[in-house]
């Protein structure tokens, strides 16, 4: 049995029709596409981090420290565009989702393998366009990642190319979502009932719907920016009868749901990790599955809470503020279910669980500060201050990115067939967690003190907070380097990990590590639920 299994080529070795690099960039294997996405998004993450570090360095003292105002404007715009559109939105679904969704469903591939490849190529096209926008024309875009009118219509920097890049990235995201929805409906093994889909799949399902339904609005919005800049139609220009606030509405109709595209898959990852390391069935399977859909639905109705100070009517402000509070309910349902799963579990503190716990802690701070900005009265005070910057990074870096790191540490042995050094991984996690709070907590305080966001200069009384935050950015950088170095060493020199190092119960752990090209050597059998750990330890002893 073992000898015949070891002869099956893994997806890393099985090149298929092409050879060399072409066996990767023209592959239709969901795992190889997942790896392409994983390496692409992590590279862009590194670029975004470097720009973030430079911004923090600039802010270590008042006045111009390393760059001037215009360069700083380009920094925060490019940091935002890269991190949001090139890293966070595709991050978990396109990399870990592509790698594991089909295997968790017991399928050979996604529903549309060629469209999957097209989606990666569109991603690369969008990436190239955005890079072009940085280095050609009259300078990198300086509008902020929101491209607000009227400034974005009149700035002479290279906004045209950047918005086309964003349009194409949106197309790529839509195709991933469309593919996953169809895959979950059509490709799962016939005996797998809806309530037997791993919850990671449910979170990708909810995410897929947001991607399909919200992203086209971003598409038309950035196209309108392009058309306004080239033809001057005036749909958002008050001099020609247009209304700039309408732009903000259109932009946030996508961009608020987009934060759920970012965070819901991370919630799915956390939901996979927690029961495995608590050795307990997930608490409230149906509630967690439905809360993903609940977040997707309610999250689509709250966009105008970004616009409380834009001059909307008070009625609109009240309604959107109320709806914003509603989103907290499904999010809290998830948090309580995770905590209930941990309660009286036999908890094993391995690195993936540490990241999941960090997610719960940091995302809770992010979520609760979200209620401060979501309630109309307090928002007037903290709108466009560092409080918003802190809140956002607590949810997206503390949430999505920690969730992704947790997923990387959880699925690493399955992807590479080897195990990283767990002690170093734990140390790196500790440094990251401390550095994260040193970096972002002062921002919440600075914001309440009144420090506006997007300023490259500030009054002396804000300096202490900025210095602490900048030091925090260095600690985070050290943690990131150590974490990635440890994973890299694991790929090169790690111990063989075996089929199921965490004794998990979902289907990807029943196949060899790394999985073969068609995922399973024999037809997979659904012998247990995704969180049913009874007797799993015994199985692994006899392998």
């Amino acid at each position, binding site marked *: 049995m073992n000898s015949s299994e070891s002869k099956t080529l893994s997806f890393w070795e099985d090149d298929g029709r092409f050879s060399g690099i072409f066996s990767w960039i023209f592959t239709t294997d969901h795992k190889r596409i997942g790896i392409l996405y994983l390496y692409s998004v992590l590279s862009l993450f590194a670029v975004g981090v470097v720009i973030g570090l430079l911004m923090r360095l600039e802010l270590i003292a008042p006045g111009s420290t390393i760059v001037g105002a215009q360069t700083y404007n380009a920094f925060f715009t490019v940091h935002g565009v890269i991190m949001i559109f090139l890293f966070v939105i595709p991050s978990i679904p396109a990399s870990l989702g592509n790698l594991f969704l089909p295997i968790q469903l017991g399928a*050979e591939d996604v*529903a549309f393998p060629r469209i999957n490849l097209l989606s990666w190529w569109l991603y690369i096209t969008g990436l190239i366009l955005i890079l072009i926008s940085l280095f050609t024309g009259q300078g990198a875009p300086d509008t902020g990642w929101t491209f607000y009118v009227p400034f974005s219509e009149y700035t002479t920097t290279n906004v045209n190319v950047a918005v086309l890049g964003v349009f194409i990235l949106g197309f790529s995201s*839509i195709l991933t*979502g*469309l593919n996953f929805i*169809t895959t979950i409906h059509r490709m799962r093994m016939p005996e797998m009932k809806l309530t037997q889909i791993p919850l990671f799949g449910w979170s990708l399902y909810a995410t897929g719907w947001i991607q399909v339904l*919200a992203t*086209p609005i971003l598409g038309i919005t950035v196209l309108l920016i392009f058309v306004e800049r080239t033809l*001057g139609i005036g*749909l958002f220009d008050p001099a020609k009868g247009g209304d700039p606030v309408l732009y903000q509405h259109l932009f946030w109709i996508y961009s608020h749901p987009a934060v759920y595209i970012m965070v819901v898959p991370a919630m799915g990852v956390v939901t996979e990790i927690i029961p495995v390391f608590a050795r307990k069935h997930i608490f409230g399977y149906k509630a967690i599955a439905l809360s993903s859909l609940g977040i997707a639905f309610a999250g689509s109705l709250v966009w105008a809470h970004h616009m409380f100070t834009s001059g909307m009517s008070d009625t609109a402000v009240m309604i959107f503020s109320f709806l914003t509070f509603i989103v907290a309910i499904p999010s809290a349902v998830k948090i309580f279910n995770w905590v209930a799963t941990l309660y009286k579990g036999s908890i094993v503190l391995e690195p993936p669980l540490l990241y999941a716990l960090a997610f719960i802690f940091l995302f809770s701070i992010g979520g609760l500060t979200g209620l401060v900005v979501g309630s109309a009265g307090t928002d007037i005070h903290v709108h466009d201050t560092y409080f918003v910057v802190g809140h956002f990074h607590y949810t997206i870096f503390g949430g999505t990115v920690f969730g992704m790191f947790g997923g990387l540490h959880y699925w690493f042995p399955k992807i590479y067939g080897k195990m990283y050094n767990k002690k170093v991984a734990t140390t790196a996690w500790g440094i990251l967690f401390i550095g994260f709070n040193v970096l972002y907590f002062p921002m919440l305080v600075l914001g309440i003190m009144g420090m506006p966001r997007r300023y490259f200069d500030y009054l002396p009384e804000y300096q202490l907070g900025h210095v602490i935050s900048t030091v925090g950015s260095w600690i985070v950088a050290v943690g990131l380097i150590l974490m990635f170095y440890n994973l890299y060493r694991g790929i090169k020199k790690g111990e063989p990990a075996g089929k199921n190092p965490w004794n998990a119960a979902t289907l990807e752990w029943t196949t060899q590590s790394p999985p073969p090209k068609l995922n399973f050597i024999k037809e997979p059998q659904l012998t247990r639920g995704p969180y049913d750990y009874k007797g799993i330890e015994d199985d692994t002893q006899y392998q």
Partner: protein
Amino acid sequence: MTHNTSKDYIGAKIGMWLFLFTEILLFGGLFVLYSVYLHRYPEEFHLAGQELNVYFGTANTLVLLTSSFSMALSITALQKGNKKLCMILLTITMILACVFLFNKYLEWGAKIHHGIYPDSPTLLERPKGEIIFFGLYYVMTGLHGLHVLIGSFIILIVLILVAKNRVTSSDFVAVENTGLYWHLVDMIWIYLFPLFYLVV
């Protein structure tokens, strides 16, 4: 072990319908703008709407509806195994698409000839509501025209696939999905036509 090459018919349809949702929402953003500005400038929209040529619009509506009919017939023809008829009907659909675009070209050309195009001096002298009306007119019919153009290319591609027997009476989902796309393009026009030519 070889890949299972049998196609998932329902899966292909689900994928297409999801894509159609995205198209509806893409235009949805523009319909939102239209409704807000109609509410804000009802009189200017009324006056500007009078200047559009209802005969051009009606002709184009008939052309597009007929093309949807021939598209639907071509699917049935292929399902019944009549490859030749299917190809003739697809060609008719494509020709009607070109007639639509030519008509649109004449209509736009006449407007541009009168100095009414985005950012033109003549247009900028008019009331703000009319600037917005014509702005929306060009953006929405322009985006729709682009979809007609893309649609006719797709029809051309499936026509070639049918000719090469890559799409057949037992595996006709490509033609059916093209038909779905074409009906969507048609349907968007069914909303654009009254909004610009009739109700204002």
